[in-house]
């Protein structure tokens, strides 16, 4: 009797507790509503279209279902709730991990592509290969390189949502004050692309700017203040690799790491970069560059343009006239420069009640018109080749320039322990900048801590 009571109680409670369920819709007899949740992140507010596109995708799928519901299948509505986070990527990843562990994860997860490695390794994500294979026109329309960013151990676990490039922003007005002609400023991206302008040249330029009082001491080169994939760009720029493709293990390339550490040591030691750069609030860093007080923002992203325009009031003509964009210069003369892409991916919870329906919502949220709207509204790049043909998109000079930088791009490895390695590298650079460690000591720190903390997941070479 007691057992039956408990069972009834469970049966009564469980449907309400499910994140994705079906129920009769009071408004339309015979139809039913599918409840679905999705989480996505900016963190910049200008990327809010990540949320609105998912909602628009759900509406479009609904219409498809309604059209198909003339026959035996009942028409359905999708009650999609989308949460848009403006927190840091680290905090978002933490929230996701705990949500998955506690059974409260959403059906659709959008986030940095590195989450694929982290979540797929733990069996949290549904593989999407079968669903993609059934939709070749959709799958083949993506820029092919993007699929490598959402693959884990040979399987696809996400659909690229947008793309971006990491680059260096320079103040053209300050370059002119240093005696650069308009032509020299204009040709700089080509020199960077040809490997004729290196990180050492950039450091020389910064020292000149300080020496000639074009900028204040420690205001020549600023960079991001958090851990992230950007820091790997320097290892690549100095000829390092990040992953051993044969074994899948992460790599700490000692020579390239040391060169990277020496670069940041030089920048802080000679007054180009403040020793406490990483303690600067983002607001201060952005304002410094937008206000024309800083020569270069070394580790920018394509989205920064719109973030600065909306948050720091630099209009399009001023941006075009006063800001030059280059790929992150190479560390080795004659070699190509570097960019790191950090595409966002939409993934489906392996426990979603209807994986295929969740996938269809993602698919329609990436229709070319929505893909373009997000790109134009947030300074990101489209993921579909047909979106790239859009007239408005092609007219945007900034996005056109960003597309050119894509040829230098690299992706961070898909590995569950990548965030830890990022943090260890970041701490090493931070140690050098504040003068707590010499570059050699910082290299030993990175080597020792990476081995101690990552064990067999990392190889130091």
């Amino acid at each position, binding site marked *: 009797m007691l057992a039956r009571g408990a069972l009834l109680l469970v049966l009564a409670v469980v449907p309400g507790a499910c994140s994705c369920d079906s129920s009769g819709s009071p408004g339309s007899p015979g139809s039913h509503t599918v409840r679905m949740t999705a989480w996505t992140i900016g963190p910049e507010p200008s990327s809010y279209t990540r949320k609105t596109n998912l909602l628009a995708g759900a509406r479009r799928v609904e219409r498809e279902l309604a059209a198909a519901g003339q026959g035996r299948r009942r028409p359905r509505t999708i009650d999609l709730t989308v949460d848009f986070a403006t927190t840091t990527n680290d905090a978002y990843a*933490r929230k996701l991990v705990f949500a998955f562990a506690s059974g409260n994860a959403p059906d659709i997860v959008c986030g940095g592509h590195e989450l694929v490695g982290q979540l797929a390794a*733990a069996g949290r994500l549904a593989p999407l290969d079968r669903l993609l294979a059934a939709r070749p026109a959709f799958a083949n329309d993506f820029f092919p390189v993007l699929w490598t960013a959402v693959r884990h151990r040979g399987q696809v676990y996400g659909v690229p949502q947008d793309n971006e490039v990491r680059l260096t922003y320079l103040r053209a007005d300050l370059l002119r004050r240093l005696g650069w002609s308009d032509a020299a400023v204009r040709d700089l991206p080509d020199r960077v692309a040809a490997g004729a302008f290196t990180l050492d040249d950039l450091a020389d330029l910064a020292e000149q700017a300080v020496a000639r009082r074009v900028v204040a001491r420690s205001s020549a080169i600023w960079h991001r203040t958090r851990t992230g994939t950007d820091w790997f760009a320097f290892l690549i720029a100095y000829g390092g690799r990040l992953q051993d493709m044969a074994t899948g293990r992460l790599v700490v390339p000692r020579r390239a790491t040391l060169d990277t550490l020496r670069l940041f040591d030089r920048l802080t030691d000679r007054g180009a970069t403040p*020793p406490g750069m990483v*303690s600067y609030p983002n607001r*201060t860093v952005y304002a410094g560059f937008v206000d024309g007080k800083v020569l270069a923002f070394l580790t920018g992203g394509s989205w920064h343009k719109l973030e600065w325009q909306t948050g720091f009031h630099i209009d399009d003509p001023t941006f075009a006239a006063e800001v030059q964009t280059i790929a992150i210069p190479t560390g080795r003369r004659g070699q190509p420069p570097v960019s790191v892409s950090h595409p966002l991916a939409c993934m489906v919870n392996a426990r979603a009640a209807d994986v295929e329906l969740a996938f269809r919502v993602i698919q329609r949220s990436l229709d070319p018109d929505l893909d373009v709207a997000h790109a134009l509204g947030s300074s990101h790049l489209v993921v579909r080749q047909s979106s790239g043909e859009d007239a408005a998109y092609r007219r945007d000079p900034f996005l056109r320039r960003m597309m050119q930088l894509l040829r230098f791009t690299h992706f961070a490895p898909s590995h569950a322990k990548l*965030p830890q390695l990022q943090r260890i590298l970041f701490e090493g650079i931070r140690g050098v900048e504040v003068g*707590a460690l010499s570059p050699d000591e910082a290299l030993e720190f990175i080597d020792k*801590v990476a081995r*101690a903390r990552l064990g067999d997941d990392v190889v130091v070479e």
Partner: protein
Amino acid sequence: MARRPSLRPRIRPWHILLLPAALLIVFFYLLPAAVNLVLAFSDMDDSFAFHFAGAASLLRPLGDPMLGTILRNTAVFVVATLTVMNVGFALLLALLTTELPDRIGGAFRVLWLLPRATPSVVYVLLWFFLLDPTDYGLVNRVAGALGGQSYDLLTSHPWLVVVLLNGCVGASMGMVVFTAAIKSIPPQLLLAAKVDGAGALQRIRHVILPQIAWPVMFVTLYQALSLLTSYEYILLATDGGPFYQTEVLSLYIFHDAIADFEFGYGAALSLGLMAIGTALAVVYWRLSGLGSRSAPPRIEVDG
């Protein structure tokens, strides 16, 4: 015929009265400690899979190259914040405000309670407005207006910032306790000292401090244990930087267990923190004779 003693335990009223507190202790102290102990023997990560890794997992922190730095930082943080702010400054506030008329002294004490009442993120943001390393910061703006240079105190003097920032919150508790203790000193003792010609400092040294020794010792122990596990303000202000200079053990555990999802390793470190806290409490209890000072009253009143 004598009645046989009942085998059923007798439920007395005080059992029921103790029950809420007992449940609280079991669920929020003993149970987490037990879970932590079990986790410490595992290598649990973000997959949340429990693999028993034995003593090797428990001893893993001993091979951590950063552990020495972290323990040293923890000692610096606890000792500096405790002595300078949580006890020292709190005592100063209590002494000064009790010397003032009640309404004015009370108003000052309310002001010093504001940091504790302010949400931690807002509180730290206010400090950032003050200490922004560029000329956007208030301190640098004032320094610039006076012809001075810019300061980046978060980088050049991180401990100063961390101790002040934590201490301004922590001092309020000591202030309240010490104020109550000072106000409970029989006024005739202070008046007698005055009549005998004792100055303010002599009254503090020879009358007030001996009378409030027990609250001072209690606050010292309580705040020491509290600081050992406190990391929230450091996380928000410096995140342990620059380069581990303000990374204390509790923050290190947060970074390992929560940021890096090394739950097993974080649990092993937490076990160490619990051992340090317990040892500290026992040693302090013995050395200070705190137990004998809080002996039960000798008069028992039957209801």
